[in-house]
């Protein structure tokens, strides 16, 4: 199985490579359009700031390639948010527009700190990505912005209101949490994705 991880200097991809390595899977970190197009699975991790990520994606022509991909695709953290239409981050930034959501910032309150950082449980799970998992399962989140719940939502978490913990449109799957840092639960989700 050929797995491509999109290389757009989007932060810590080493942990994703190691997580795949623990599953006995080799992956290629690449921005090469042909390599990405021919891959069996594509992973799109990301951390950091949306506007600079979009600049790098545009510089490499990836903003045009990614929406045309047809193989199973998994966005992680910022890699999920970038699939939306627009984000408040960076004073307002246009995104890839693969999924019809707009990314907004959590309001910080004394009780609910921002970033939303730590282990939260998943609710309203749908589809093959979450096979074998339940609302008792916790995953690790670190983010200040979120995608609201919509018809594309395949898992929710609450902080304190529900938001999209995972989304899907056709072959495009994405999770707001870090599968590679979510212990055995995260490993199971990665395994489920690799079976798609």
């Amino acid at each position, binding site marked *: 199985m050929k797995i491509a991880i999109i290389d757009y200097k989007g932060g810590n991809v080493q942990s994703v490579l*190691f997580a795949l390595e623990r599953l006995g899977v080799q992956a290629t970190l690449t921005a090469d359009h042909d390599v990405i197009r021919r891959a069996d699975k594509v992973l799109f991790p990301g951390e950091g700031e949306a506007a600079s990520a979009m600049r790098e994606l545009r510089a490499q022509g990836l903003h045009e390639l990614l929406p045309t991909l047809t193989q199973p695709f998994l966005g992680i953290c910022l890699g999920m948010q970038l699939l939306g239409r627009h984000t408040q981050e960076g004073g307002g930034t246009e995104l890839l527009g693969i999924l019809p959501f707009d990314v907004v910032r959590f309001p910080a309150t004394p009780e609910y700190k921002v970033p939303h950082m730590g282990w939260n449980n998943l609710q309203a799970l749908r589809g093959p990505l979450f096979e074998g998992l339940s609302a008792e399962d916790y995953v690790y989140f670190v983010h200040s912005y979120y995608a609201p719940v919509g018809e594309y939502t395949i898992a929710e978490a609450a902080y304190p209101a529900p938001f999209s913990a995972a989304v899907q449109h056709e072959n495009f799957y994405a999770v707001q949490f870090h599968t590679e840092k979510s212990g055995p639960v995260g490993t199971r989700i990665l395994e489920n994705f690799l079976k798609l």
Partner: protein
Amino acid sequence: MLTKRIIPCLDVKDGRTVKGVRFEGLRDAGDPVALAARYAREGADELVFLDITATNQKRATLVALVRDVARELDIPFTVGGGIGTVSDVEALLMNGADKVSINSAALARPELIDELAARFGSQCIVVAADARYHDADGWQIYTRAGTHNTGRDAVQWCREAAERGAGEILLTSMSNDGTKDGFALDITGAVSRAVSVPVVASGGAGSKQDFTNVFQQAHADAGLAASIFHFGEIGIRELKEHLRQDGIAVRL
């Protein structure tokens, strides 16, 4: 529901765990990777590695350690201890650290926090603040491994660090550290109210009830401890079961 985090802290020197860890069944307690994996299995939510190496090879050994840990560990971890430049932070993050904590370097030049947050995002920049209580001046911030009083007020410094872009505050009470009399509830609560980012409480944990208190009374988001975990005085699972009985959300 977001859970409260339990974080064991490992001191490392020259790539080895120090501060005598006594763990039955662990063949090499000096191996940070083996110890980290064990804590992860027992239910630790995150780990902190505090590097106290003081040699010229410090950066290379720390990067190698981060790589080894990231290869094995499937929970997040923070690395701290004498980290002072953007390139240090970049090397650690690129090799698999989830967060990097800065302390003395941030106090020497607070703009470093802004630069790191702009470059890497707030989510991976932790500011570690060491505070000590004085009858006359209240809680003051210390640097250089707790040897130097900066004269800065603890709450004001933590607020400034968060405003400059720290994504988390790791607050250690030097007045409580090593006492096992419990966390410093007053300063932890004051900092937690003053900043809009998560606060990790450190220093003084001696019992399970100490964690309940720091979560319920001081509103800490996470509790960090070293020796009580290393010496097996409190198991992570039994601690979390205690917290759940007290009505605190934990990952079990």
